[in-house]
């Protein structure tokens, strides 16, 4: 029972954060059509901004109010400069997708190395709400419960925003068919840039939440989350926000289960994500929740 709780509840806790990261990538890839390899680097940057601010005795949860808008602006500008240019120069969507993937890799290197030159490559951590909570015999640190709760609430708020607001409607129209949406009067460059900005903001906020639970490190932490987000987005179906949400929870549980299995261990958690990814691509490329 204790092991079961550790796996399922522990998996859901980390899964909540995966969901938030993946919803961000879902917007960037599902709508803006950029397979953003640098997604995890935005997350890393968010984590380090939080780390940096909380050193001045600011509550790390408050830093979300800075991290979110800062990364939104960065993502928005990035899309309006780099990716809009690529989009306008590409003769067809296939070329845009490949070229933007390569450009995203360039951005990955740039963002990561800016962070390395500011914060170095040693792991950093700080303690925040470190006491343990006992849930039917399984112990969880408070900070993980808080982080997961924040991730889920922000994710849901965002979903409501997409489902209800006027901007959300434009985003959904662009996800269906960008050129038709443009004909219907949607400012397509701004809408796609908004998606990219929201995606970056969600990654950054997820990074803030991760920093209150786990050690953070500039040069290694991002790529793992990018891989997770790619798998979750494929799992949940491209551009499906609820799909990403549920997919993130599933992946959290699977990863935790693999990490708890004696003969596999946590080193193989990422490999297990990739196996899921391969099977999905081959058997159901639309994702479990895709139409």
């Amino acid at each position: 029972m204790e092991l079961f709780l550790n796996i399922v509840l522990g998996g859901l806790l980390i899964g909540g954060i995966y969901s938030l990261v993946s919803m961000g990538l879902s917007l960037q890839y599902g709508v803006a059509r950029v397979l953003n390899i640098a997604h995890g680097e935005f997350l890393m940057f968010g984590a380090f901004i939080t780390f940096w601010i909380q050193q001045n005795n600011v509550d790390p949860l408050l830093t979300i109010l800075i991290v979110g808008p800062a990364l939104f602006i960065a993502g928005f500008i990035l899309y309006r400069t780099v990716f809009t240019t690529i989009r306008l120069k590409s003769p067809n969507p296939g070329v845009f997708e490949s070229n933007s993937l390569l450009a995203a890799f360039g951005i990955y290197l740039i963002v990561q190395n800016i962070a390395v030159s500011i914060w170095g490559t040693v792991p950093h951590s700080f303690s925040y709400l470190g006491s343990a909570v006992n849930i039917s015999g399984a112990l969880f640190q408070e900070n993980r419960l808080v982080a997961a709760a924040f991730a889920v609430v922000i994710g849901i708020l965002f979903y409501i925003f997409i489902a209800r607001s006027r901007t959300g409607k434009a985003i959904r129209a662009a996800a269906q068919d960008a050129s038709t949406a443009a004909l219907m009067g949607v400012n397509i460059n701004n809408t796609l840039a908004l998606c990219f900005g929201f995606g970056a903001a969600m990654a950054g906020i997820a990074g803030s939440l991760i920093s209150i639970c786990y050690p953070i490190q500039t040069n290694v932490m991002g790529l793992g989350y990018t891989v997770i987000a790619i798998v979750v987005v494929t799992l949940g179906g491209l551009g499906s926000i609820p799909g990403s949400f549920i997919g993130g929870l599933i992946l959290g549980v699977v990863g935790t289960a693999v990490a708890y299995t004696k003969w596999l261990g946590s080193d193989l958690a990422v490999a297990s994500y990739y196996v899921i990814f391969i099977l999905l691509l081959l058997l159901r490329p639309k994702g479990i929740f895709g139409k």
Partner: protein
Amino acid sequence: MDLNRINWKKAFITAGIPLIILAVLVFFPMYGWDYGVTLFTHFLMFVILSVAWTIFSGTTGYISLATAAFFGIGIYASALLYPAAGDRYPLYVVVLIGGAVSFVLAFIVGAITLRLKGIYFAMFTFGLVLLFKEIIYWYEITVEGRRGRLVALEANDTVYYYLLVIMALTILVAYLIKRSKYGLALQSIGENEEAAAHMGVNITMVKVLTYAVSAAFMGAVGVVMATKWTYVDPGVAFSPMMSFSPVLMAIFGGFGSIYGPVIGAVIFSYIEEILKTGDWSKYYMLIFGSILVATILFLPSGLVGLIQNVWRRVMERRRASA
């Protein structure tokens, strides 16, 4: 009459210049310029990788990011069959094995995944690199209780000449494929796969075989490089940079011709060498990333394409003024 002269000129460009360059490359290590040999080894490695990448991805438009996977397999073939301590096979046998294993693996990967559309194929191949890295790390640490392996060290000249032969073969094969009817078929697949299939091209076979051929060269080069680096671990063997660098070099040079990736690889590996050895080493990746973004934004058809455009404009102006 005029026609004859043009053909001679063309023959000189297609066969003469490469042969002269090859002759220079064959003889120059004999003058004892050690740094030059090391530098050129670096060039050769990237020329092979980016030309091999272009053979398949440049023409079909399927962006493969598995270069590091095939290269890494070559490295691990070396680590297992050409270790620092214990029995080892002759190096040329290991090179052949490394190439063959990469060929087979690419064949299987291609057969499963080449029906995936563009970006999914890129994701899949990139994931392959990470998967190999994770699994071998896990195997070495958990099962064998070690990290990394040692490969027997080879002399700089040996490494150099091995790479030179592999490079000559890669470029020759790239050229022969481009000239043959299969080159035409690959191009048609890049343009419109459905139409190509209806014109009688067995698209699956053409794609999978070409992919496997390009991977064989990547594997072979991995085998040889391991004997230069001697210490290898999954992080060295399956580094994502080895997947992206050849792509960048090919795009930077322009993959419309075989010259493009060659020029791109030489320029880039030289930049890398300068940056890595100087005070700038900290910023190497940052600069690399910036050049990648700038190339995609401003040099879509590569340096060779840019030069061709400028040349055409100059010629037109000359014709106009005449």
